[in-house]
């Protein structure tokens, strides 16, 4: 169905249009969130929040960018917010653990396995995801959009609202940082 027509119908409050939008873009949104937060339950929560926001603020979509670009932006923002909240909770939990004997630790998804990884690459991918978690936010977003979602540098630059050369630079730095992390890991775990 035509994207513009769907958006127009959603603006008019048609639930069928909303359902079609969700079913068309749910994998894209979920996969992006999963790539960033690396936890299935959290990724589903984020994907739901993204579509709730779409439903509530479709009026703010002016059509200046592609609808999918708008969706990617909302997803990335929500996933990063989630990560920041999680880090704050972890820090707070650490402080609390100094004063209290009983508390629930915030566990990092250390052995995250993306369900779309090929069987023979699972081990490498697990390690790579652990390394991606160490990257600064911008590099992590660029790398995830390019490698996990398969977006071109041009598309990544549109989502991140930056130039293609900035994305190239982010990818270059991300790759260097990942190399350093992996080299360190293999030196310590031969």
């Amino acid at each position: 169905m035509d994207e513009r027509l769907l958006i127009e119908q959603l603006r008019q409050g048609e639930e069928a249009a909303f359902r079609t939008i969700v079913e068309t873009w749910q994998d894209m949104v979920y996969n992006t969130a999963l790539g960033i937060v690396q936890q299935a339950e959290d990724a589903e929560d984020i994907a739901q929040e993204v579509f709730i926001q779409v439903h509530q603020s479709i009026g703010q979509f002016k059509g200046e960018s592609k609808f999918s670009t708008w969706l990617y932006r909302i997803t990335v923002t929500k996933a990063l917010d989630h990560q920041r909240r999680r880090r704050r909770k972890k820090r707070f939990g650490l402080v609390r653990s100094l004063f209290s004997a009983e508390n629930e630790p915030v566990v990092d998804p250390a052995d995250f396995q993306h369900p779309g990884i090929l069987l023979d690459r699972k081990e490498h991918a697990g390690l790579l995801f652990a390394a991606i978690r160490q990257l600064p936010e911008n590099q992590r977003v660029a790398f995830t959009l390019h490698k996990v979602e398969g977006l071109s540098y041009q598309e990544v630059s549109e989502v991140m609202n930056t130039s293609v050369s900035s994305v190239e630079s982010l990818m270059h730095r991300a790759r260097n940082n990942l190399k350093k992390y992996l080299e360190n890991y293999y030196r310590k775990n031969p």
Partner: protein
Amino acid sequence: MESRQDITKRVEQALSGLDGIRRASPGPYFYTRLRARMEAEPPRTAWERMGMFLGRPAIALAVVLLILASNTVLLFNHTGNRKAATATQALLNAENGQAGVQNPENAYDLASNSNTAILNILDRENE
């Protein structure tokens, strides 16, 4: 101990770990779960959204800093006005042949008379 070449090879293998990755799906009945959540959580009011926005640590800190900065500016301006008023009064006193301000504490008392003093100067100029 692994050679540098071995490590480089393993790093390259790890870096290609995401090659051929397929998109993950949220599982069946995602739309049903989404609708259930939307019905359980009514849309937030504008006040609730504003509260959440102001509740963000970065925003809250920025607001506190803004209030502190505006207070500091107001305080400095107030002190500056008082000094100006004291200086005006001192000039008037000198003009009238009175002694200057000897005691700094008295300078603040003189500040309240500054408006009258300025009006007197204006009257004199008009005459």
